[in-house]
């Protein structure tokens, strides 16, 4: 039953060429001396099933850009449409529900909740969004952990895991509600090259299964995994906006 709805989603996504679309997005921060414009009239599109890298120098606005997609932050002006939802128009409550179901977020510092076990960390999004029947949640969490290859760590606390394992757990958590889109901000920034390769393989596999992945990265030798690279400089997209 679940799989059927997932499939339907995918069909719908395939039909929607522009799953993510930013139109004329401006983001300005209030700073001591006035305003600092971190995104300058950005237009960009991402199609369903793409695996997009966002690259650029430090401070160029990468995190700011993907925060627009996840709704973690809101634009000063412009429109953000994700799966036909006008994200910029949602209020906090609507955003939380929408994000919980449609976007999986992966952070650089893993950000697992320290007092919950790995398994419980993965059940938590389902609990908040009420997505799967309570009885099925544990089994689903275990299946996701198996998928990312750390099922045997399920009952440990995050602090007992290595960095790579924690990041896999964070990816499993991002998948908990079976979102169409995964957004990650430097997910490999804290990992050694071997581990980071394994994590990238995981993302690539997810993209191949039909997930749309947008990822900020600094590492050049990872470009082989991506279907497209968007390059930012001083708050403007200089290449790859499509």
């Amino acid at each position, binding site marked *: 039953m679940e799989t059927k709805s997932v499939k339907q989603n995918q069909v719908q996504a395939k039909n929607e060429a522009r799953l993510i679309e930013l139109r004329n997005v401006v983001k300005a921060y209030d700073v001591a001396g006035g305003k600092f414009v971190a995104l300058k009239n950005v237009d960009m599109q991402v199609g369903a099933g793409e695996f997009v890298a966002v690259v650029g120098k430090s401070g160029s606005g990468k995190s700011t850009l993907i925060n627009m997609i996840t709704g973690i932050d809101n634009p000063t002006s412009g429109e953000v449409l994700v799966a036909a939802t006008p994200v910029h128009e949602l209020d906090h409550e609507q955003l939380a529900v929408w994000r919980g179901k449609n976007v999986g977020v992966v952070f650089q510092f893993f950000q697992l909740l320290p*007092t919950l076990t790995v398994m419980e960390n993965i059940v*938590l999004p389902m*609990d908040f969004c009420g997505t799967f029947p309570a009885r099925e949640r544990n089994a689903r969490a275990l299946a996701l952990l198996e998928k990312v290859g750390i099922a045997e760590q399920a009952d440990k606390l995050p602090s007992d895991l290595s960095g790579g394992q924690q990041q896999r757990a964070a990816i499993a958590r991002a998948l908990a509600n079976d979102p169409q889109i995964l957004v990650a901000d430097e997910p490999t920034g804290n990992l050694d090259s071997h581990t980071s390769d394994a994590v990238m393989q995981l993302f690539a596999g997810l993209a191949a299964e039909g997930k749309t992945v947008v990822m900020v990265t600094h590492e050049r030798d990872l470009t082989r995994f991506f279907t497209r690279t968007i390059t930012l400089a001083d708050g403007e997209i200089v290449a790859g906006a499509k």
Partner: protein
Amino acid sequence: MSSTRWKKLWRDLQAARGRMIMMVAAIAVSIFGVGAITSAYTILMREVSRNYLGTNPASAYIELERVDDVLVESVKAQPNIAEAEATSWVMARVEVSPNEWRPLLLFVIPDFNALRLNTFKSEEGAFPPQEQTILLERLALPMTNAKVGDAINVQTPNGQKQSIVISGLVHDPGLAPAWQEQMVYGYITPSTLAWLGESDTLQILKVKIKDGSSNQAAIESAVSDLAAWLKSQGHTVEEIRIPPPNMHPHQSQMNSILFMLLIFILMALVLSAILTATMIGGLLAQQIRQIGIMKAIGARSSQITSLYLVMIAALGLIAVILGVPFGVAVGRGFASVVGELLNFTIYSNAIPAWVYVVELLMGVLIPLLVALNPILKTTRTTVRETLNYYGTTRETVASRGLVSWVAKLRGVDNTLLMALRNTFRRRGRLILTLSLLAAAGAMFITGLNVKTGWETYLTDAASYRHYDLELRFNAPQSEAQINSILATIPEVQKVEAWNLNPAALVRPDGLDIVRTYPDGGHGSFSLRSMPPESKMMEAPLMTGRTLQPDDVDTVVLNQMSAAFFPNAKVGDTIQLTVNGQTATFKLVGIIKQILTPATAYVTPSTFAATTGQPAPMTNAVRIVLSQHDAQTISAASGAIESALAAQKISTKVSITETMLEGATSGHVYIFIYSLILISAVMAVVGVLGLMSSMSTSVIERTREFGIMRAIGAKSQTILRNVISEGIFIGLMSWITAVPLSLPLSWGVDYLVGMLSFRAALPLILSPLAVFGWLLLVLLGAVFASFYPARQASRLTIRETLAYV
């Protein structure tokens, strides 16, 4: 706890066990304080009236030349009279040790078993007393140094010294406690009175009016009708006493205590709310990043809000469960202490249900209310903001100025500077902690200030009396004769006549109504002659001037008597009824006299003219002795008594300085107890607040400490850093608390003083309080910061850096 988010909540609570315990303790302590006070309040209010009204006090006492059964029956038949009874009061004295006498107020009861008005209960021994024996009030017994079954020496105004057996004890809750008034209360039959040398004719008619027995005006009009009727029947109405209706003699004293406690309850409430806010602020600071993560993975603000609200309600509930029983126990204890002091029997300890409801609401609702805003603020911030939260704000110019100023001082090392800078990092929390500690400190200091003010007031009262003995005679005596008798006593240095005559306010119906209880002390009004330029009494002038030797028909009132003439100004004329005649005086001044009943002072010549007591006669003298210690006073008063007795002059009472002191200090205890109790609660709340704030600040900076240690700081340094910060906050709060305590003390001094003496207590900044609180707050600060600091310095560097 099936769902994962509740599991998370539960684990967080467990992980932050220390802080949760602190928070529960803080709420529990204030619930305890409020609970103790409200419990005591409800018990006392109920039991006071149950005890006092239980005696069925008469509405009025009418003194006639003779009250017999026939008269009592016909008074009962009067339209407005519900009950009437005959009695007599005789002011006698009892020898408590050889030659040392205390006043003994004898209540003469014709039929102990048929007593309806001003009733009392048997406590021990005989009831009614056998002929030629006496019953004593239970609190009066210890003052006689005797036991039930012993014989005591008693002397009435017209009788000889007579030995009489104490055949039992009674409890008479209608009277002020004997030890407070330093007066022994005894109960005898008319024939025993006759045996003691007095007439057995009863002279007091006690009446209770039918309707509006709690309404002063209704009583006065009913009694004035009755007096008119009595006169028409040929009786002479000597005096009418109407005590404040349905009020125990010490009701106003207790009201002022309860009122003060009420003020402090409100302040305690504010404190507990501030404290809860501090603690919740700390809790949220610790969780803010996790809140961000939860929101990033799909939690709605409302889900997170309800998570925290439920947690706070649960903590509040635990606090209530812990705090209420202690509050109830202490409240009951306090009520029983007060009850004992005021000679009540606490018949029931029951505390009305609303007290529990209020405590429950307070413990749960107040934390929820103060938490709501910070929780909403936190859960509503954008995910980006919460994830970027580092718990610090920019330094303000002022704090930077202070820090750089301190940096210039010699001998200030870097640790202290860091501590200072940390203190200012979170301005909101600093202000909260400071206000909490400062408020607690101000209340602590206020408590002790008021106590000192009260004590100063009493010592002032004593130091304004420059005489050692006052003698009151049963009948006026020649002043010259008294002087010559007293001159034979070597210890007597100086004697002055201070004549005394009861006075009353003028009423249109011409009745002499005095507002007095049967014991005669409370609420009485007297006219006294004051020798001009006397050095025996010092009293600060509140307005106007003192009496001059050539003054005629001028009066100086003390503040208690001035209260009967609320509109009178210096220069106005006032009228008093003295011995049934209206006398008019010009008011020239008002003096402040502590613990002295309402008195109007006039010159000796004016006194003679007003009362008709010829000038060479006197009915009261004050005596200064060569030495002022208790032994000399007691020896001298014995010698004076026997010298006077040899001349057949009987004295009604002799009042010594020590007796006055005993009487006054009794009034103070309750105040001191309650102030100390409240101060202690405040101090605990304050220190808990500091502790919570310190541990919040330490938790926020755990990662920072990890980094500091990773780059070479020793655990010791961190410990010192945190403790310096705590001490610094403590010092700042102390600096704020001291000036804050001044207006607060002034207000409480005013209220308490006005309620008890009609004059504000002196405002005194007690050094003990100021430095005592400094010591307390410093100790508290070290204690409050040591625990969280040690926790932080014990974590390994890896643990601190992994801290989310």
